[in-house]
């Protein structure tokens, strides 16, 4: 009897303080986590974010020349490599885009497909998963077979927003080059990317990404591991990303496989990404 009484008492103490508790019996619905990254790029690397639904996103990426010439060319500011990137979010899960980079006069077409969203419940929904694919068409050589111009990129973007201030991303990557320059080089290049964001304030964050090659790249093929460090500034309508990186090109095969800068002697590139969104809803 006493036990019954205690249970009875306990069951009512909750109900006393608020009227809402009288009807609290609905299930908790997990919501997808928002804002794992500010922009669709971490620094160089693609982030797990897509352009928002019914939103056209315009990105200008800009990398100056190497900083190693010092004041002579104002730390590379006389030179530039730019990219225009337009993509559209059809809904929360699918986006398509196209871009043109001055690096090797390359055109590209790409898609991002969100396979899974990290949710607000801890259980199994611990990460967001996005499939990124791109075809690049280098047009710098005038007389070249079309097939030889093509490079394909495939990435799985796996990201987790650990908390409000920290996000991490792992990026298994395959780059397929139709044409290789040297006999020792490989058509299929595998690598694993790592990216992260640390928020400093609500609108400013520090970002970094790098790619580790898997398997050799061929003995005579010069290869430098690429990296980028950046600072995101979110002003509401725009996201500005200020960047230092050792790769000048800003499409996948260029910044993952063709980075050539080294910190030694300041042979790195300063640059920025500007993202602007236009809503069509």
């Amino acid at each position, binding site marked *: *009897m006493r036990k019954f*009484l205690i249970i*009875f*008492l306990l069951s*009512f103490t909750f*109900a*006393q303080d*608020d*009227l*809402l508790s*009288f*009807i609290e019996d*609905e299930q908790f619905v997990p*919501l997808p986590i*928002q*804002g794992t990254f500010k922009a669709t790029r971490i620094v160089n690397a693609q982030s797990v974010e897509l352009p*928002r*639904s*019914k*939103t056209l996103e315009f990105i200008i990426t800009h990398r100056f020349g190497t900083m190693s010439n010092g004041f002579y060319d104002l730390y590379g500011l006389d030179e530039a490599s730019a990219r225009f990137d337009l993509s559209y*979010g059809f809904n929360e899960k699918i986006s398509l885009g196209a871009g043109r980079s001055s690096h090797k006069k390359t055109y590209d077409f790409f898609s991002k497909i969100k396979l899974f969203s990290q949710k*607000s419940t801890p259980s199994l929904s611990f990460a967001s998963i996005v499939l990124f694919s791109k075809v690049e068409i280098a047009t710098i050589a005038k007389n070249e077979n079309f097939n030889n111009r093509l490079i394909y990129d495939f990435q799985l973007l796996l990201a987790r927003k650990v908390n*409000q201030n920290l996000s991490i991303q792992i990026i298994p990557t395959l780059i397929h080059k139709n044409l290789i320059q040297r006999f020792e080089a490989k058509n299929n290049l595998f690598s694993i990317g790592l990216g992260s964001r640390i928020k400093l304030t*609500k*609108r400013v964050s520090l970002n970094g990404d790098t790619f580790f090659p898997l398997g050799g790249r061929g003995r005579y093929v010069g290869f430098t591991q690429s990296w980028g460090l950046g600072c995101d500034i*979110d*002003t*509401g309508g725009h996201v500005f990303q200020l960047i230092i990186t050792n790769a000048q090109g800003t499409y996948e095969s260029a910044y993952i496989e063709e980075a050539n800068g080294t910190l030694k002697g300041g042979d790195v590139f300063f640059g920025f990404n500007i993202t602007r*969104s236009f*809503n069509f*809803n």
Partner: protein
Amino acid sequence: MIKLLILIFLSFPVFGKNLYFTRSGSVSFFSSTLIEDIKAKNDQVTCVLDAESGQASFRIPIRGFTFKNALMQEHFNENYLESEKYPNASFSGFIEGWKDTKFNAIPTPIMISGEMTIHGIKQKIKENGTIQMKNNKIYGNATFNLFVADYGVEIPKIVRENIAKSLSIDIELILKKK
């Protein structure tokens, strides 16, 4: 022992309540400036009214606000209302002069006062509204203004011209008997 039980039964107000509620009430807010108008609506508002005492409670899930512009909606949650930290706004209060309020099919003006909590900050408010009874349902309506700054929501300089300092809030509820 049985006497004690009965006493306990009686001492809890549960049995003296005459509750009306909804889980799909709507709240919308409107910000109007020279540069742009911003509107968001939330149809997931929970409200409980005790028709015996005139006490009322609201819970408004912040993630339930939908904007036309998805980016704006994300900023609203991430940068302004911080919905991961403060998932709900709430109100708890009572309708003044409830005993003398007449229920009928014509909207009757009322005054509701109590505590509003948004973004983790509690403020006492007192606002006008109307209430009516139709087909055994209670219809509630209120329109009022609140100041963004009262609830510790910072608006950065760069968008200060885009977001109004005072938002117009519109509440519409249809409560059914529990």
